[in-house]
């Protein structure tokens, strides 16, 4: 009897370990599958180093915005103003550098400061007036967009210093533009903070249960405020990379990054550390989606199919993750 119970227990543990592994690496496996399928269909083009380096090098802006989003999301807050901060920052770099004639470094620093300022204001309204972050950041995002349209005179500005363009996409290491490495370093830093520091653990507590965190002696307000500031700062960093990528800036196009970034954040939360917003999962999610879209466009498929892939992948991944988790709970 004892032997039988122990056997069942072992089988149960083994099955659970498999489910756990499948969920943890599911997105990574799906990414590999996408690479294999497109690689078989277009081996010469899709599997070339040029294509790989292009995929990796061209999505740094989306990666940084996604990383910016997962920080307040982990603490249970939303930052809907992050894409507006991106646009504000890119436009500030262009206006200050091209129109005002400031050196590019000064323009970048001021753009980053502006991002921090937006985060501080967001946090102020969320913490002191106890307004939901969704509402504050929605309003703030719209306000900042108006501000950006005003100071840029709704113009697109080209001619951003070639120094910035060189530092973002022209200079390459192993054939991949530097922008990719910036995004990767950022992801590793956030991963380290989330996984190995006290502040990362506290952040997780705050996100899981504010009251419990408060009773445990964590300064919840300060943590949430800090997250909103870091998120706005990363939005500004994304704006600088955006200006460096296109060598120009316009007051509207950056806003379109908001929904893809949310999609990547939620998709990323289904892998590596399932159920948690995590930086490595987010990076994999961005590149999984981009790999699929690149493969489809190499095949010459219409752009509407890319939307089907984007939206479909998100729903399927989150649903699968839910199913796995449901089974796991039943097994327990």
């Amino acid at each position, binding site marked *: 009897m004892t032997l039988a119970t122990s056997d069942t227990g072992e089988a149960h543990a083994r099955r659970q370990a498999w489910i756990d592994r499948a969920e943890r690496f599911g997105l990574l496996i799906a990414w590999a599958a996408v690479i294999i399928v497109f690689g078989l269909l*277009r081996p010469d*083009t899709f599997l*070339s180093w*040029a*294509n790989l*380096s*292009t995929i990796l*090098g*061209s999505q740094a802006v*989306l990666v940084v915005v996604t990383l910016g989003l997962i920080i307040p999301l982990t603490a249970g807050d939303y930052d809907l103003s992050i894409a507006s901060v991106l646009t504000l920052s890119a436009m500030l770099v262009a206006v200050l550098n*091209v*129109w005002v004639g400031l050196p590019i470094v000064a323009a970048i620093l001021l753009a980053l400061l502006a991002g921090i300022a937006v985060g501080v204001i967001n946090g102020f309204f969320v913490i002191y007036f106890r307004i939901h972050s969704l509402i504050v950041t929605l309003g703030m995002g719209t306000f900042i967009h108006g501000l950006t*349209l005003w100071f840029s*005179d*709704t*113009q*697109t*500005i*080209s*001619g951003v210093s070639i120094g910035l*363009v060189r530092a973002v*996409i*022209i200079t390459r290491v192993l054939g991949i*533009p530097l922008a990719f490495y910036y995004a990767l370093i950022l992801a590793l830093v956030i991963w380290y903070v989330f996984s190995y520091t006290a502040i990362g653990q506290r952040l997780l507590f705050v996100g899981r249960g504010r009251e419990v965190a408060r009773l445990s002696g964590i300064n919840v307000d300060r943590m949430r405020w800090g997250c909103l500031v870091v998120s706005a700062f990363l939005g500004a960093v994304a704006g600088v990379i955006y200006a460096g*990528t*296109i*060598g*120009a800036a*316009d*007051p*509207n*196009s*950056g806003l*379109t*990054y908001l929904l*893809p970034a949310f999609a990547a954040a939620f998709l990323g939360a289904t892998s590596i550390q399932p159920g948690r917003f995590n930086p490595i999962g987010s990076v994999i999610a961005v590149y999984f989606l*981009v790999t699929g*879209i*690149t493969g489809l*466009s*190499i095949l*010459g498929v*219409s*752009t509407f199919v*890319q939307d089907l892939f984007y939206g479909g992948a998100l729903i399927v991944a989150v649903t699968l993750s839910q199913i796995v988790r449901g089974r796991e709970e039943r097994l327990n």
Partner: protein
Amino acid sequence: MKRMLLNAAMSAAFVLAAAAAHAESDVAAKAAAALEPYKKLPEFQAAGEPFDAKACMEGKSIISIPASSAIPFLKTINDSMTKIAEQVGFKFHVWENQGQVSQWVQGIDYAVANKFDLIDLLAGSDPRFLEPQVKAARDAGLTVVAAHLTGFEQAIPGGASAVVPIDYKTAGALLADWAIAKTDGKVNALVLVSNEALSTDSMVSGIKEAFANCPDCKYNIVNIPIPEWATKIQPNVQSALLADPTINYVIPIYDSMAQFVVPAITITGKTDSVKITTFNGTPFAIGMIQDGQIEMDVGENLDWIAHGILDAEMRMLCGLPEVKDPKIPLYIFDASNAATAGTPPEANTGYGDDYIEGYRKLWMLQ
């Protein structure tokens, strides 16, 4: 006998090769000739007989509803229109909006309630989305004009009273002709379009017609909706360039798309082999010509457009014959003349300013 046959075969091959080479250079020469008139500084041409604008516009009013006030191109046109209306002396109002259809509806309702005489739906506030409102406005006695939306060959859309068309078809043809002339008839182009804009149909028909005359040219048209320019253009261009390394031209048909094409070409390392030709003449795009990132931009003078549209609309309100061609010229900017637009380039600069005098005389303001 054998030698004779060999000689005959070699001669035939030579003649064929020469004929093919001639055909190629002929195609390129024709394309170059088609470009020539648009390389000269445009001259003012009246779209109709002179008329006393001040007298006939007295007490009349026009409201302009742009596709979005956040689009620099439209804001500049509206600013010019406001100045012109002040000079002529009639009431002119811009319905500022952020590109939402509900805001265009509001603008039309406002125009009807406030008894404007003419509604100018400017460059993208498409009457096809506003048919009930357009009908209500027309029933109330207002004239509804879709300006800078259709090509010469396109029908009046959405039940509007009239259009002020632009020669989009020629603009499209010029983009293709430029590439044909530059490559001696061996273009492999990626054409980026946005099908939801009515002007796209006209431009694409011009591009197709020009390429139809070029037997060794090939092109692929990719549709990217306007709201997705920032996120979709770059990856699509990158993939296309990697999938087909012989692509030598990217033709984004509106120049605000070009800023997302440039990084795609840079990242794929094709700066030397892939060139960009585009349309609109937006200042930042001319700046990109100065920086060597865009090869050619077919420009429209936004102030000239404002004059041309108001000229046509004033004629409608004054009961004068309808303007079929507002005579708004196209002008080619490339590395040789991009500096004339200023550094950094400014809207309306580089086209000469004789037209201002021309319109003042046409409207009998002097």
